[in-house]
């Protein structure tokens, strides 16, 4: 009986494996990925390579010919003062925002992870701004940060402090955009951290409590070390995301003002390609941007590649 059954099972398994491999089945298997693959090749993979090709040309959208100019776009870019300003501003904004978000979101995550009443409500409020579009967020914050009529300055004056020229002062505009972005986005890393915090087993905290550790010590010696992978992950992904900032300066500072003090790489890309229709130069900007981001990604891989699995 037992051998009979095992033979039947073995037979069907064998048969099944064979039928899966017949050409007819292989072809139908392709049907599952084919629609996606066509779109992927057209709108993702092809354009990635085409982008390099365009960047090697003096590609003006309205011109009849697009002459090949080799690396001239890249050479010009390296000598282009605006590019360096845009790069500096983007990096400044990205680092500032990511550092604040990485730390602040962790603090808030620990506050709303504690077993207190109403913590679901606090989580709800803190994540709410994340669902707004950058357009809505930019409009709201540019009105709040208005030097003359903004409510932030209204409260500052009310407390007897001098008004601040948030978006009008060239030295303050990027920190101001950063502040607005932290308001808008910190709920996201907060939730990422919450997932990490819930993965820390309770018995570690119990053991520490039995040993007489205070709250600060448990945070310092248990939570932070065990959260290091999450902290690195949040920081690098935040850095990559905020380096590509566009909407905030586009909406809040009229596309990078005052002057060029909040002019970012993507704003430069946007204006080059869609104001001046210099597609070749724009493509070179995009490729250079991608290289910077690739650099961040490699750092991310290095960090995570080296990190061993944490054993509790």
């Amino acid at each position, binding site marked *: 009986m037992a051998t009979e059954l095992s033979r039947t099972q073995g037979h069907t398994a064998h048969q*099944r494996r064979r039928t*899966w*491999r017949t050409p007819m089945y*292989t072809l*139908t*298997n392709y049907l*599952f*990925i084919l629609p*996606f*693959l066509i*779109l*992927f090749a*057209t*709108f*993702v*993979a092809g*354009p*990635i390579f*085409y*982008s390099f090709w*365009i960047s090697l040309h003096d590609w003006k*959208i309205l011109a009849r010919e697009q002459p090949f100019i080799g690396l001239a776009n890249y050479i010009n870019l390296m000598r282009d003062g605006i590019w360096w300003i845009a790069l500096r501003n983007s990096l400044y904004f990205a680092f500032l925002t990511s550092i604040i978000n990485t730390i602040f979101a962790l603090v808030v995550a620990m*506050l709303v992870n504690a077993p*207190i009443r109403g913590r*679901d*409500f*606090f*989580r*709800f*409020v803190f*994540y*709410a*701004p994340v*669902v*707004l*579009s*950058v*357009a*809505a967020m930019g*409009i709201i914050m540019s*009105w*709040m940060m208005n030097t003359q*009529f903004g*409510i932030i300055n*209204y409260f500052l004056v009310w407390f007897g402090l001098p008004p601040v020229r948030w978006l009008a002062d060239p030295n303050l505009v990027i920190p101001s955009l950063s502040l607005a972005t932290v308001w808008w*986005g910190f709920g996201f*890393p907060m*939730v*990422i951290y919450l997932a990490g915090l819930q993965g820390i087993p309770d018995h570690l905290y119990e053991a520490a409590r039995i040993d007489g550790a205070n*709250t600060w010590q448990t945070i310092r010696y248990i939570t932070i070390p065990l959260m290091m992978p999450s902290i690195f992950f949040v920081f690098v992904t*935040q850095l990559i995301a*905020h380096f590509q900032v566009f909407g905030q300066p*586009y*909406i809040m500072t009229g596309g990078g003002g005052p002057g060029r003090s909040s002019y970012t790489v993507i704003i430069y890309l946007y204006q080059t390609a869609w104001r001046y229709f210099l*597609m070749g130069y724009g493509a070179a900007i*995009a490729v250079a*941007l*991608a290289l910077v*981001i*690739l650099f961040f990604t490699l750092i991310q891989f290095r960090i995570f590649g080296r990190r061993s699995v944490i054993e509790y």
Partner: protein
Amino acid sequence: MNHYRVYRFLTRTLHYAVLIALAVVVGFPIYWMLVVSITPAAEVYRWPLQLWPANPTFEHYRAVFTRQDLMVDRWFINSVVVSTIITVLCVFLSSLTAYGFARLEFPGRNIIFMLLLFTLMVPGQVTLIPVFLLVRSLGWLDTYHALIWPGAVSVFGVFLLRQFFTSVPRELEEAALMDGAGRFRIYWQIVLPLSRAAIVALTIFVFLGAWNDLFWPLVVLNSLELRTLPVGLTVLQGTYIQERALVMAGTVIASAPVLLFYAIFQRRIIQGVMLTGMGGR
């Protein structure tokens, strides 16, 4: 012991005080957007500011819908239609493809998958100009094709769902196969329902992403009546910057649906972020 109790009471109070203060600061801008949108135009610039308008009015909402150069109702419908089509297409294609990579065998599977992995590391900005030129040569500029087809491709979605699909027990699928179910039926009736949490999360975040996207619609759409809400808002901010209450009314109209949606599904959305790592910047 008593000393310890006092200490605990104090830390607990401080804990709440910090959280409440933070909630007020975070919630205030959204509240303020609502307040400004119902403040009479004459009072918007008046000091002292009113935390609740003395004479609330809906004149700005009426104006937003009736001004000749604003088509907020049309933009709203555009956003709903475009985001819905993108979401349905994207989730369907991603899940179908993810199932293919998770369970089916075909020549070149690993090479194609490696190619997907590679493109995931390349930032999307690289493809903006080539896709724009492509869309232009297809005659799709200023049509929804330009938004929908590029928007329907999510390599990340494929990766995400593949990961969930591989954790569906193989035995279930094999049992269904023996009962004579086809591969598509297995995907549709077994794998999809079992991965519901991931599918729902992907659906929500693809929709939010499409609804909130600014750059791409800004670049490929030109006609006033074809715009989506975020692009419409930039017009509003650009043209009517002097009429703050009007701009805020438009912003409320663009934000209310997502905020409402979030309020209803908040638990699912926050769980979705934890599950997928999507849902933010």
